[in-house]
């Protein structure tokens, strides 16, 4: 089946070479980081996690987003998702691989990464994150591959895979819950110390993951004969729209708690993220344009995505999905992690700007994810089109 990835049009090969070159440039950045140390990044004593961990956090959401396809299809027998569900599972694989790469990139001593297994520590949330992420990766490879392979052979998938598919449903929730627990269990950082963090993570995940999927599906519709189908598309619009609204509802709850209670620790980070935080004679606001753009793009996206369905317009659908995806990428991929650090518990404000090398590694990891995704999608779509022809 994998041989399907080795036959493709010129466009396919150009795209893969482009990704490989990005990976190469990023690998050079990583070599520099490996030799010098993490000091080559923009991180500092006060802002100890930067773009790597925030990308990781966001991508866990993208991986968990696959649930919104698996659950209706396998549990509620929603047939319209028959063609798209495999895309969701394969996207989860690529996203988890990226997550793991970002974690490794962030380690000061990457050669010792296996110490997490050598000295298992159940009181650390990072230990559980390791378990759930790797477990989810294995589950998705297993379920996705077995189901697709059965289709390739023209038979129904074997019965034994069903328990694994069902297991992957709560497991998807667990990956994002545990990832939220990394943050919300730490005393002293008010911005993260909120019970609503895991629900908010899940809401944004269930919007951002399927949004990315729809964007890719629309691209595939253009460049291949593969069409996920109108009904699936419309259903996903509902899912994305409501999940995105929930996310903003949760964000609104955070705003209420902070500004109605007037507790400084709660307000500081929101001040920094959305209005600019005055501290001494200085105002710190380097994330304000991003965070405001995030809210505007997100809300516009929600409006547009429902409108696109009324108009049955794919162009509008892609734009609205892009708006929602970028909005949540900023919210979680920038604001959430940095917001917790920049106003420190000792009432210092230290801003963070990623370094050139750091961005190089980040781009390379995304390129690797896209590379894996392209291979998997190439296989999946070739099989689907072949069977239908």
């Amino acid at each position, binding site marked *: 089946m994998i041989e399907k990835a080795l036959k493709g049009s010129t466009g396919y090969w150009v795209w893969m070479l482009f990704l490989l070159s990005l990976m190469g440039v990023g690998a050079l950045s990583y070599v520099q980081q490996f030799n010098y140390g993490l*000091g080559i990044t923009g991180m500092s004593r*006060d802002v100890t996690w930067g773009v790597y961990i925030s990308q990781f956090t966001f991508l866990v959401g993208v991986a968990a987003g696959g649930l919104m396809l698996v659950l209706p299809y396998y549990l509620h027998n929603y047939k319209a998702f028959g063609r798209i569900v495999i895309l969701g599972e394969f996207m989860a694989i690529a996203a988890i691989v990226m997550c793991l790469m970002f974690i490794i990139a962030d380690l000061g001593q990457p050669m010792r990464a296996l110490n997490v297994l050598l000295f298992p520590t159940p009181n650390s949330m990072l230990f559980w994150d390791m378990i759930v992420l790797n477990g989810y990766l294995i589950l998705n490879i297993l379920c996705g591959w077995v189901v697709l392979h059965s289709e390739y052979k023209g038979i129904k998938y074997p019965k034994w895979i069903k328990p694994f598919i069902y297991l992957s449903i709560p497991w998807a929730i667990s990956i994002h819950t545990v990832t939220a627990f990394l943050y919300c269990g730490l*005393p*002293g950082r008010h911005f993260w110390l909120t019970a609503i963090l895991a629900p908010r993570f899940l809401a944004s995940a269930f919007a951002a993951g399927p949004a990315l999927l729809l964007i890719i599906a629309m691209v595939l519709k253009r460049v291949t004969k593969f069409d996920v189908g109108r009904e699936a598309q419309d259903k996903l619009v509902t899912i994305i729209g409501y999940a995105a609204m929930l996310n903003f509802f949760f964000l609104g709850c955070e705003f209420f708690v902070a500004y109605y209670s007037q507790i400084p620790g709660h307000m500081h980070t929101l001040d920094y993220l959305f209005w600019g935080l005055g501290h001494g004679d200085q105002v710190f606001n380097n994330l304000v344009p991003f965070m405001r753009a995030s809210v505007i793009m997100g809300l516009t996206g929600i409006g547009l995505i429902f409108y696109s369905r009324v108009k049955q317009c794919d162009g509008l659908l892609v734009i609205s999905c892009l708006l929602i995806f970028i909005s949540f990428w900023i919210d979680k991929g920038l604001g959430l992690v940095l917001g*917790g650090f920049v106003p420190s*518990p000792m009432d210092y404000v230290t801003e963070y700007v990623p370094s050139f090398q750091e961005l190089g590694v980040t781009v390379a990891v995304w390129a690797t994810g896209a590379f894996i995704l392209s291979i998997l999608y190439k296989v999946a779509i070739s099989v689907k089109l072949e069977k239908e022809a």
Partner: protein
Amino acid sequence: MDSKRRDFLKIAGLTAIAGIAAPSAFNTLLKGEALASAGPAASGHGAAAPTGKRYGMVIDVKKFTENPGLAEQCVTACHTIHNVPDFGNKKDEIKWLWVESYDHVFPEHSQDKRPDGLKGMPILTLCNHCEKPPCVRACPTKATFKKKNGIVAMDYHRCIGCRFCMAACPYGARSFNWRDPRGKDANGRPFIKAENPKFPTRMRGVVEKCNFCTERLAIGQIPACVEVASQAKGLIFGDLNDPNSEISQVLKTSFTIQRNPAIGTHPSLFYII
């Protein structure tokens, strides 16, 4: 109800049973090294009688105001003995013991009106060696752990440099080796001015912090900073669990405050302002 859903419910049920059984398994696993997560009995309402040693420190801030420069001497002594590098910039900074202003040590105490004397008062800050350290809870490899004598210690051999402990520490007491501490700056000046041959350095990519001079306590000495401040009686070090120790006597007779007590970390450091 179709069979698929029935299958699912079966699995969900099994998962729920596993979930109920998990806490007991969890507790078994937690026994041993992970003292940080000891149950509610460790403190709070109806606290159990303490057993064993618990090292702590009282910092008498007035003594440092009366002896200008003393705080800096303590810092130098600590950093020299422990081969703490000086990178000359804030981004890479590593510190075990340092001088901080009142507003930053006690941000939650910063009321509108307060004595002028507090302004510019040098306050020594170091790892609080919490009774319930969030850093120990966060560490995924037990590279940071709480010893039986209450000291929150680190094993630099095991640290993977994930910096979860730095996110967890509410007191900014942890530093990361962003670059090689054995290196030299652009002018060829080594970051560790004079290496103490009796103590190791650290390596790039690990977290480090104050160890309450474990290596000195082991051979019957008091912590380096306490020794420097001993003439002025600025730092009182001892066993908090021993009612007859000097530190227990001081704590009984003086009003002291702790850093951010509301978050339940139970620091072993006390300040007389």
